[in-house]
Each structure stands twice: as C-alpha cells, then as structure tokens.
C-alpha cells in the first residue's frame, strides 16, 4: 500500500507523541491529555461507534472511529459518566493490537505434533465430537470450561447454559476467581447480595478516599484522575494504605505502609478505636446490623481436594467488643509496622460523623488467603459508623476486568453460580431450568471445581477435556510450575479460543480464532453495576468468530440445538433478552436493550426508567420496602452482618532459607498477561519486560544494581528477571515485587497456590522467596 511522505512523517510524529504520553502516564498518576485525543484523530469521514473499553473494570466509554470498514481511532466517550471523555494510555491505544502480524485468523488443529490450518466448521466438529466422546467414556464431570471476566455477557451466558443446563455439570469456572471471588464472598456473607452499593459518583462527594492495597494510579487510572481532580478542586484527601510505595502513594496526601497480611489486624484495630471512642452510629447498628462469627484456623487450601465450609454463629455486640480487645492500636502496631498514631489517624477519619469516606480496594484485599474476612472487615468499619449507601460514603470494591461483574458475577460463570443465585438453592435451579427449558434434574446441586482445583484436576488426570475462552491461565494462574506441565499431559484434550497465540494456546490440541471486542457485538458490566452494550464495528480477519457463536455451534453439534435457537446475526440480542428474565424485579432489573443501545451504559437495578445509584438506601433504592431508612434486603431479615474475623498469619512467611516476601501485580502499560498490550508497539516499548523491584537498602546489602539478572526462587519454582531499584515502585525492606504481564519471565512459576478457604481466591501477594545474582 502506498503511503505518502507526509503521512509517514505524520505517523512518526504521532508515535513520538504517544511515547511521550505513555512515559508521562507512567510517571504522573492520573495525568490526562484529553485535547490531544481530539487533535490526534485523523481527518476524514469517520463514523464514531460507541462501546466500553476492552481493558479494565472501570468500564470507560469509548468512541471508535471507523473509516472504510477499518477502526482507525479511539477517543473517550464524552457522554459516558464513567470517564467523561477521558481515557488512559491503554484505552487510547487499544485497537492497535488488532493489527498484530501473529493474529489468530484461522482454526489450528494439532496433527502429529504440528498445528494445521483447518476450516472453522471442521475444527468445531472436532471440539464437539471430542467433548461428546469424553462424556460418553468418562462421564460429564470429565469435561470443563474455563472462561473469563473479559467474556461478554452473552458469551458467559451460553457457556453456563451449555455446561450446567445442557450437559449437566458444574465444571465451569472463570478467571474472575483469581481476582474477584473474595469480593463476591465478602458481599454475600455481609449483605447477601453481590456488588457495590454505591457508584463512581461517590467520587464527587467524598471528603476522604482511603485506598486499601490498591494502586489505582496504575490499575484504575481514569478513576484516580477523577479523585485527583476532587483533591485539587475542593481539597478531598487521598490516603494510601499499602505494602509497597507506588505511583498512587506518591500522589496521595498520606501513605501508610503495613506488613503483608496484617491488614486484618489493622482493620480490627480501627473498629476497636471506633467502638472505644464512642464513634459507633448506634441507631444505624441497632436498626440494621446483626453480629456473627465464623470458624477460625481455617487452612489455606494447599492440598488437592481441600474442602471447607464456614459455620456462622450469631454473637452479641458485647461479644464483638470483647473480641476487639485483642486489637488495640498498641498491640497491633507491634506486628503490623503501622504506628499507633497512624492507626488512630485512620480510625478518626472513619469515626468523624462529619467526614464522608469512600474506601477503595481491589487485588490487595481480594488476592489474600483471608480475602473474604478482609472484605468483611472493611464492611465492618463502614457499618459501625453507618457510612454506607450514601453519596460519598461507602465501601467500594473495584473490579479488575471489564466484565468480571457483568459476566462472571451476574451471569454466574463460577462453579457454584447460576444466572440468578447458586446451584445449591433448589428455587434458583428451578428458575434456571424454567428459563433454559431443561429438566431441573439436569442442573447438579453441588459445585465442583473452583479454578485452582480445576487445574489440579487436569494435572491429576480427572478432567480429560478443557476449553478455555478469553483467558490465558498458563500465565495468570499461581504456581504455573505445576499447572503448565499438567496441561501438557496427553490425558487432557485442550481447546483454546483466543485472539492471539499465548503460552496457553501453545499447549492446545485445537486453537479457535476468536473475534476481538469490536469485531462482534456484546455487553459488559463494570464495577459500578453499569451494563454497557456495543454493536459490531468492524469485520474480523479470516475465520475469526465470536466466542458465544462458537459455543452455540458446539452445543448444536452435540445435539442441544433446541436449547440454543439463536440466530447468527442477532444472537447477542436474543441471548440478552433471555438472560434479562433472570433478573426481573426491583432488586436487579436490567435495562432493556433499546435503552442500552442508546445510552453510554446503564446502572442496574433499572426501575421505572431510572438507574439505582445507591442500593439499600430507601431514599434512592425502590427495592427497599421495610419502611426504614435502610434495607439490606439481600438478607432474609433485612439486616447486614458485622463479622468477627481475627488476624491469622499467611501460610508462608519469610524465613532463613527464603528471607523475602514476594508480591506480584500489574503495571499501567499492560493489561494482565500482556497478550494484547504487548502487541501494541508504543506500550511494549514503554515497558518491554518484567523486572524484580527491591528496596534500595536490600539491594545495597546484597550488592545488587539496577538491571542485573536476579534469580527469584520459592519452594515451587524460580525465574530470572532484571533488578529494578528506585524505578516504578518501592517495596518495603524485606519485600520484592514483580509484575506478571511477561510470558517470557514467568513470576507465577514462583507464586503459591494457597487460597482463601471461603472464596477459593488464590493469594498472589504473599509468599516467601530467596534472591541471588546470576
């Protein structure tokens, strides 16, 4: 194709600008170049099509500029109340990955050890036949699907319908287990209803933002820029409470560091202070709260087939006060490394009835062997003070993926979930059976494999067929040193649907070429219960196909055609309208499709043409019907629960042999395992490889300099990375940090597969390692 000199120079200039914007974004939290987004848009007759961003759980609205059938520009959607026209560097560059030269455009089937390009229909025949024959030979629990918080709502829905309704196995789980399961378990145990009660408009009202183990400047940059705007405009304060100094800490008013795992103790100490100083909102607690305790010393799930069920027992407020006496600031300061003064400072903010406080958290609290407890403790603080379900006051669990809420949690692609409720509940199974038009006996009443156990079952040979969609578990799972060889075994037939080759597709028997985001229609649901629809914007290359349609085609080939009567052209609409039936009613009503097509996202419950921004508050939520000011209607008696949850140590702590904590996470330039963002040249160039961060004192003591090759070893595996000192982040002494986006430098070969026994979410933030120069 001819490119004029002017165009080439203009392209180079644009690359220079993008490099500078990316560099600025990595150095200055929340920085925004909104006008450049407008200026950088090519001239021409562009048609702008709306949708949500492909990447994180913030759910920014985007407008994609399409010309002659090609997507050539992206800008923030000014009509989206989420981002108000802003985008981060990932969002701005997102469509560039579709041009990658190694895009999967056709199905590939492994024959005699070599991948052979195969017509999509033939590949789907192979998948369906293999799934069917595996069930015939080994039973329905020998097949599994592993999907994603990046799957669209229709994709998650048909996967659930196929596995649970048609085949009749609960062998369906998703990668949201790795990021949001503790948040779900926290919501359900405290409120009996999943997902945050507030919304992003809280940012415009809060006096304080307290972030718990949450680097929002890099992970939720647009929300962080909104917080910074409030800080600059009206003096709102940001307090960063974390185990590592990050870009967020640097932009906050105050940074408080704690010893890994002791957030449990500090949260209890804050509650002690609230009670001890008379800051409890007594009327709120009397009217709306029950107190409970659960089992303690609950294990860490390190053994295969680990089982745990909590046994809740009601307690009194007096019992709870007695429990808190073990968590005085003076006692907790001794092992948390948080000073008494700082604990009292945090408690005083929450305890001040005249200050509005929003608490934000994400992976730090969820990827935790006591993640459910930690979520409960966060709610305890807000429930004791009555700072909840009001503009600017509330606990807000941020989600990581663009549809972890909409798909994984609301559709329910976890082993225990149904589109409404859980498989263990007879009424919920009956509703699903009615809408799906299957016998209720088809839906098993017991959950089977959560994510970690699913891949253990593959390794053991119990699962003989697995189909992964929109996810890259052989980079994102903990302890990949076990699960990669497990997936390579001949005992399991592996099908991988993806847009690009990944280490997971490297072990597949069949690779299915998936449509990318804007090459199909879909719906996502973000952190604030906002459902966002988009129409297909461009054609995908080759035989790329939407994941939902591939699932439907396999279902038809397996003989379930009657249950999947959707049309290829309109299956997204048809599926959404069927799915919507599950959530009828004021507590979770979804907006009609025609409204979603018109609006830049709509928050559920959508009742009488209006979104419910603050649930459980009678002033805003029409589902409240107890005649009181608040109604926690997820629980049978309408009351939320304050849980007595103690501090318990991590399963593995630094010792003489493995003297460092290892913490893992993300960087602003890359989306999770990097399969998309590493194919965007400007992002890849800005952050080409992973690294291991040291505190300068530790680096000095070990004689380590920036860029030197360091071997990081745990009891499970090792990897080698360049050292990073005083660059992106600053771990505390005795801690190292590595991002997990780099498939060539696999830190998850080192991490531990311990998980929260209630939520089954693994802890990627804490294990013990040793480090040595190589």
């Amino acid at each position, binding site marked *: 194709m001819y490119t004029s*000199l002017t165009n*080439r*120079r203009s392209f*180079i*200039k644009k*690359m*220079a*600008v993008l*490099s*500078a*914007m990316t*560099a*600025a974004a990595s*150095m*200055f939290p*929340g*920085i*925004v*170049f*909104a*006008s*450049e987004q407008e*200026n950088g848009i090519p001239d021409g007759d562009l048609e702008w099509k709306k949708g949500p961003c492909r990447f994180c759980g913030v759910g920014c609205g985007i407008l994609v500029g399409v010309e002659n059938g090609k997507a050539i520009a992206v800008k923030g959607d000014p009509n989206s109340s989420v981002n108000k026209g802003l985008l981060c560097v990932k969002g701005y560059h997102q469509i560039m990955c579709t041009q990658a030269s190694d895009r999967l455009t056709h199905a590939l089937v492994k024959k005699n050890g070599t991948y052979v390009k195969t017509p999509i229909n033939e590949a789907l025949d192979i998948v369906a036949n293999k799934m069917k024959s595996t069930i015939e030979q080994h039973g329905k629990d020998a097949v599994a699907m592993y999907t994603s918080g990046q799957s669209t709502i229709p994709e998650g829905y048909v996967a659930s319908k196929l596995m649970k309704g048609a085949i009749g196995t609960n062998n369906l789980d998703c990668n949201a287990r790795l990021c949001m399961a503790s948040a779900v378990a926290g919501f359900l145990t405290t409120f009996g209803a999943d997902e945050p009660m507030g919304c992003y408009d809280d940012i415009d009202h809060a006096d304080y933002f307290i972030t718990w183990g949450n680097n929002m400047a890099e992970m939720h940059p647009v929300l962080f*820029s909104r917080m*910074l*705007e409030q800080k*600059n405009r009206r003096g709102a304060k940001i307090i960063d409470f974390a185990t590592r100094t990050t870009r967020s800490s640097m932009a906050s008013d105050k940074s408080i560091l704690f010893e890994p795992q002791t957030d449990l103790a500090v949260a209890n100490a804050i509650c002690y202070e609230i009670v001890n100083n008379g800051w409890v909102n007594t009327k709120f607690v009397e009217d709306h709260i029950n107190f409970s305790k659960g089992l303690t010393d609950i294990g860490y799930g390190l053994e295969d087939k680990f089982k745990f069920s909590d046994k809740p027992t009601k307690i009194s407020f007096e019992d709870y006060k007695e429990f808190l006496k073990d968590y005085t600031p003076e006692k907790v300061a001794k092992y948390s490394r948080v000073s008494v003064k700082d604990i009292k400072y945090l408690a005083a903010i929450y305890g001040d009835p005249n200050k509005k406080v929003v608490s934000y958290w994400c992976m730090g609290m969820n990827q935790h062997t006591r993640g459910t407890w930690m979520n409960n403790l966060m709610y305890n603080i807000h429930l004791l003070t009555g700072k909840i379900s009001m503009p600017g006051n509330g606990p807000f669990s941020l989600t990581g993926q663009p549809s972890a809420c909409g798909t994984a949690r609301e559709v329910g692609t976890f082993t225990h979930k149904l589109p409404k409720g859980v498989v263990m509940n007879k009424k919920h199974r009956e509703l699903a059976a009615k809408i799906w038009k299957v016998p209720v006996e088809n839906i098993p009443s017991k959950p089977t494999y959560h994510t970690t156990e699913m891949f253990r079952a593959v390794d053991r040979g119990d699962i003989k067929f697995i189909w992964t969609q929109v996810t890259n578990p052989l980079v994102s799972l903990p302890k990949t040193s076990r699960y990669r060889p497990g997936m390579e075994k001949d005992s399991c037939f592996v099908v991988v649907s993806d847009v690009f080759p990944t280490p997971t597709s490297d072990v597949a028997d069949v690779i299915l070429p998936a449509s990318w985001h804007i090459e199909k229609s879909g719906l996502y649901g973000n952190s604030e219960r906002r459902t966002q629809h988009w129409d297909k914007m461009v054609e995908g290359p080759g035989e790329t196909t939407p994941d939902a349609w591939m699932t439907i085609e396999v279902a038809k080939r397996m003989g379930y055609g009657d249950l999947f009567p959707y049309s290829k052209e309109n299956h997204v609409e048809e599926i959404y309208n069927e799915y919507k039936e599950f959530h009828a009613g004021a507590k979770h009503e979804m907006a009609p499709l025609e409204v979603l097509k018109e609006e830049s996202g709509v928050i559920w419950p959508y009742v009488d043409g209006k979104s419910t921004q603050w649930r459980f508050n009678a002033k805003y939520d029409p589902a409240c019907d107890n005649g009181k000011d608040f109604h926690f209607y997820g629980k049978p008696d309408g009351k939320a629960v304050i849980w007595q949850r103690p501090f318990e140590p991590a399963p593995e702590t630094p010792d003489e042999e493995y003297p460092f904590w290892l913490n893992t996470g993300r960087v602003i330039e890359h989306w999770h395992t990097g399969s998309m963002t590493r194919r965007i040249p400007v992002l890849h160039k800005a952050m080409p490889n992973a690294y291991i961060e040291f505190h300068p004192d530790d680096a000095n003591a070990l004689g380590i300099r920036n860029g030197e090759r360091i071997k990081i070893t745990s009891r499970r595996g090792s990897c080698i990375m360049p050292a990073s000192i005083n660059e992106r982040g600053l771990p505390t002494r005795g801690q190292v940090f590595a991002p997990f986006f780099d498939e060539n430098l696999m830190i998850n070969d080192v991490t531990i597969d311990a998980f929260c026994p209630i939520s089954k979410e693994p802890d990627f933030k804490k294990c013990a390692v040793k480090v040595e120069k190589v």
Partner: protein
Amino acid sequence: MPIKSYLAHPKKGKRAELVNALSNLQECEVIPAENNDLLIVVTETSNKAQEDKLKETLETIDSLKMLSMVSGFNTSKND
C-alpha cells in the same frame, strides 16, 4: 529529519508562559496535560544542525524548569 518528543516541566506558576514560548517556535508542537503542570513537546527539524540550534533556543526559555527527551526518530529526507 529528526523528530523528537520531550516532557517539559515549567517553573512554578509559569505554565502558560512556557506553553506560549514553545508554541511560538515553528519547529515545536506543544501538548499540555489537562490536570498536571507538564507539557509534551514534539520537535521536527530538517537536520542535525537545526536540531542543535533549536535545543540551544529551548534552553534559554526562562519559564522552562526541565526538559527530558522521551523518544527520537531520525528519518532520511526521502523517508
């Protein structure tokens, strides 16, 4: 034909002055951040000599506190 991008930091309270000074240079394109005292500057010159001369000019701008280069491309005239 060098094309380079820089992050430019203004002296305190001199953001508008710096935007103005840079915008007046024919070889410079300026993109200010919406919510931060930081500017992106993209320079486009014909050759190394002109590039060096521009750099000297930039260094004399009073409102400029610091200039750090992010990327540089050097294309041939026919490129």
